[in-house]
């Protein structure tokens, strides 16, 4: 009787132990996931604007201090250009950029009280006579976090807000061309590697939105949206995607890439591809061949099996 009670008590303690271990594990995971590190919020992050010569434009940038102490922030405008195709940045401080002289920020050094927002006024004055085209700059917002001395390394962070300005040009003036539209002509895979390169030959930047249309000989056309990307003047962009193809994927397809350049205008190129599951087809062919052979030579096969088993026909 006492033994039974001890067994019950030991079982209860065992389950309690398991429960506590699980509780501890899940809470540690939760703590690890929710560790708050965010310091500052910047909005808007991208000023994608169309400007006209001789006009003045006003914008607002909101900074939000997310920590529980006042946060000094420094704002600084810098030049930037883009690397070709892959969409990287080159921050150039030496190359002159007229956009930086047109932008006036009402305060470049400020202290944002704890857990509050501050609005920065930005004024863009475009001179009467400027070459039309795209002008680009980045406004860096750097929180100046208090840093103790006698450390091996100080760590600082800053956010870049982009100014993408088309001056004196509109979306109707976009000039672009498809440099490469490459899909494998023959495939038996469920994914297709797509390579697309588009060149901007105009003076203004634009957002290029590719859509791939796959049309089988019979059946419905499939529309596949591909990520939209900015292309800067004189630059090209590259898309390397693995396209998931339809389930019933066999036969000849017409693949059309349509790259929208805005305002209903688009570039288009077409190619054809064949999809045949050769390995599966060979297995099926082999099975059919063996079946035909057995059907046609069944007597000989039965006799051969008898000889093998009994030693005589």
């Amino acid at each position: 009787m006492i033994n039974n009670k001890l067994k019950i008590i030991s079982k209860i303690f065992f389950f309690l132990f398991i429960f506590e271990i699980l509780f501890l594990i899940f809470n540690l995971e939760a703590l690890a996931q929710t560790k708050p590190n965010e310091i500052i919020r910047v909005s808007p992050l991208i000023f994608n604007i169309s400007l006209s010569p001789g006009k003045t434009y006003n914008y607002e940038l909101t900074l939000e201090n997310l920590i529980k102490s006042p946060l000094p922030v420094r704002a600084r405008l810098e030049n930037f250009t883009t690397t070709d195709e892959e969409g990287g940045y080159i921050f150039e401080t030496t190359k002159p950029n007229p956009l930086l002289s047109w932008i006036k920020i009402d305060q470049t050094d400020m202290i944002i009280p704890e857990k509050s927002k501050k609005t920065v006024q930005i004024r863009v004055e475009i001179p009467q006579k400027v070459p039309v085209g795209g002008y680009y700059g980045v406004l860096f917002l750097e929180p100046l976090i208090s840093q103790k001395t006698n450390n091996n390394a100080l760590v600082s962070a800053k956010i870049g807000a982009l100014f993408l300005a088309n001056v004196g040009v509109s979306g109707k003036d976009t000039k672009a061309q498809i440099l490469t539209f490459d899909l494998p002509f023959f495939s038996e895979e469920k994914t297709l590697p797509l390579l697309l390169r588009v060149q901007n030959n105009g003076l203004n930047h634009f957002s290029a939105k590719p859509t791939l249309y796959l049309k089988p000989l019979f059946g419905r056309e499939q529309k596949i949206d591909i990520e939209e990307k900015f292309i800067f003047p004189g630059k090209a962009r590259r898309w390397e995607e693995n396209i998931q193809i339809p389930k019933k994927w066999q036969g000849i397809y017409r693949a059309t890439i349509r790259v929208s350049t805005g305002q209903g205008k688009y570039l288009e190129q077409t190619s054809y591809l064949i999809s045949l599951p050769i390995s599966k087809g060979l297995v099926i062919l082999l099975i059919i061949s063996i079946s035909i052979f057995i059907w046609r030579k069944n007597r000989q096969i039965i006799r051969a099996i008898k000889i093998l088993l009994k030693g005589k026909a």
Partner: protein
Amino acid sequence: MPRFILGLLVVFEIGIIGIIGIIPPLAEAGPQSTTYELKEYTFGAGGTSQAGADSSTYTLFGTAGELEYDKLTSSTYALGGGLIFTLKANVPPAPSFTNPSQNYDRLKFIIDNGGNPSDATFAIAISTDNFAADTRYIQNDNTIGATLGSEDWQTYANWGGASGEYVTGLAAGTTYYIKVKAEQGNFTESEYGSVANAATSLPSLTFGIDSATLNFTSLNPGNSYTDSSKSTILTTSTNAYNGYIVYGRVTQALTFSTFNIANYASPNSAPSTWSGTGFGYTTDDASLTGGTGNRFTNGGPKYAGFTTSAPGDPVADHAGPVLTAISSENFTISYRVTADQETEAGVYTTTVLYVVVPEY
């Protein structure tokens, strides 16, 4: 014989009755060609019979009344009359128009086909001032254009069906209004349906680091002149469609007086398993831009040395398209410093800079 004659007469009569039954009376036939016959073409009150003048392929519509000069209308509904009104496509109800992911340059719409057949096509007008002075149209590539071309009339399926699609190229922080009309063939264009509206958000980015300093353990023979226990957590939230990228660099190598511990030799594009001495880093971003995505994580931590030139090398990123806003995404940059017994004793310092920018 009389029986034979009687029989012939009966057959003749039956034949006559049959012919009369087959051939319609001339007075009832309408204008006709070899293919069609206009069965009813009179004007005036009344209309077709309840059964309608139709076949399995065609139907002639009739009117139950004449078109009134003063139609019964409200701001939402119109009670029309006449043949034209009967032929029109159904007016599509207000579409669904939302910003489910807090996007700043696109909004999601799902049109309602309003009971129209599957071959009906729809056009969508869009405005920033509820169609007072600004009326534009969603083009067939889902951008906005000033004119409505025939190609911009698309079927319910081509406008994304029940899943809908995104209209793109919108201005940030702006309220947009859309309305839809339908047609099914010539002369069937409906009025616009009710207006729906939605607002784009502002693109924003929140960024932070968990500590503004790094203090390595004193390097000595007991720890093989190595400390790899320090790290920085980068936390980012954004709704930027193309995602974000964090670049990292240092202002100089770890320096004490005229001595330094060099940055680890392997570059960001080809990090390696640690060997030798130097100051390096690794990242837990397993799909990092700038080379093979998992080059830092595949087969254990791989290390690279910081560069000193701007903007630095990619250490964390989130590629687009971002259709659901990224919330407090953490990436950990772990450091390693290894000296040797010949390294001059002293406090070696540098500054690590992280720059986060939206991808474009």
